[in-house]
């Protein structure tokens, strides 16, 4: 045994296994012409209400499905199933986030090629989900008007990992003195150029702009898939 320790170079990504699965999922979604959209937010930002409304409005026009992650209970899946869309609950036990392997496993037995959209609702958490790629095409970070305009500054990492910010519960904006200008400024500070959508799943305000945006992306996806 040599007395002196020596350094050896390794250079290995700790999350490589997750990233490899996520990449395979993304390629599969792309070749099947399906748009995968994930949702991240704090607990209580209105992910499930927003998703229920989205599924209900899209379902007459597209085959849609959803996966929903929670530490425990099937409550969210039951709520989402009211939309009529196929929904599967992923219970993570003690894990505070979804990982790509859970998505892969949950899709077993589903013919994803028949879907237009797949929604993935992450566990309510603004920290851990930012490290894990799920193979989604679009990551939405949700923030309700009741949460405080400085949230993007407190959680810059998740805003940086997301593509679009969705401000929910706009129907409560006046009651909580929501300052739209300050929130917009904070979002742009941590993620310059980020698209911001404001809506209320309860009143329907802003939902059509959101759905138009999704459908536009879905059309591009289909064109790209059929061109291959």
């Amino acid at each position, binding site marked *: *045994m*040599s007395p*002196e*320790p*020596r*350094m*050896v*170079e*390794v*250079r*290995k*990504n*700790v*999350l490589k*296994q997750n990233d490899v699965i996520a990449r395979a999922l993304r390629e599969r979604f792309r070749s099947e012409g399906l748009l995968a959209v994930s949702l991240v937010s704090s607990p209580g930002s209105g992910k499930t209400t927003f998703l229920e409304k989205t599924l209900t409005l899209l379902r007459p026009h597209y085959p849609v499905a959803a996966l929903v992650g929670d530490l425990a209970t099937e409550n969210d899946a039951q709520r989402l199933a009211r939309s009529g869309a196929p929904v599967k609950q992923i219970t993570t036990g003690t*894990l*505070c*986030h979804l990982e790509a392997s859970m998505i892969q496993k949950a899709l077993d037995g589903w013919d994803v090629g028949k879907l237009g959209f797949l929604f993935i609702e992450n566990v309510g958490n603004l*920290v*851990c989900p*930012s*490290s894990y790629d799920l193979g989604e095409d679009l990551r939405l970070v949700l923030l309700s008007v009741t949460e405080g305009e400085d949230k993007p*500054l407190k959680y*810059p*990492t*998740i805003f*940086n*990992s997301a593509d679009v910010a969705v401000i929910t519960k706009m129907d409560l904006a006046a009651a909580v003195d929501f300052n739209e200008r300050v929130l917009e400024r904070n979002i*742009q*500070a*941590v*993620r*310059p*150029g*980020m698209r911001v959508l404001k809506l209320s799943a309860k009143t329907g305000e802003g939902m059509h702009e959101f759905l138009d945006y999704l459908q536009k992306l879905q059309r591009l996806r289909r064109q790209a898939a059929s061109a291959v």
Partner: protein
Amino acid sequence: MHELSIAMSIVEMAQEEAELRGNVQIQAVHLRLGLLSGVVKDALLSSYEMACETTPLEGSRLIIEEIPVEIYCFNCRAQRPVHSIQYFSCAECGTPSAEVTRGKELEVFALEIRE
């Protein structure tokens, strides 16, 4: 708090490397941790100790090099540090940019071994 599962992956990865090199003893694991990786340094350090318990890595150290966030600045036409993690603009000229070029690392880059 996902640092424990990350720490367990690091220990597993280091153990595999040790086996590949003929069961060498690992004294330290060097990790590059980007400030945008979503992993908290202190939580990872204490999780590492727990993850090492009852493994051949027990007693080894985790040495973390924190990697600052850099963006591509379209005005300077160069990679530049960000003003701060709350303010993604070029530290030199102030131009905002979301093109992150550095700071998401979560990488085991070296091991200190004793043969």
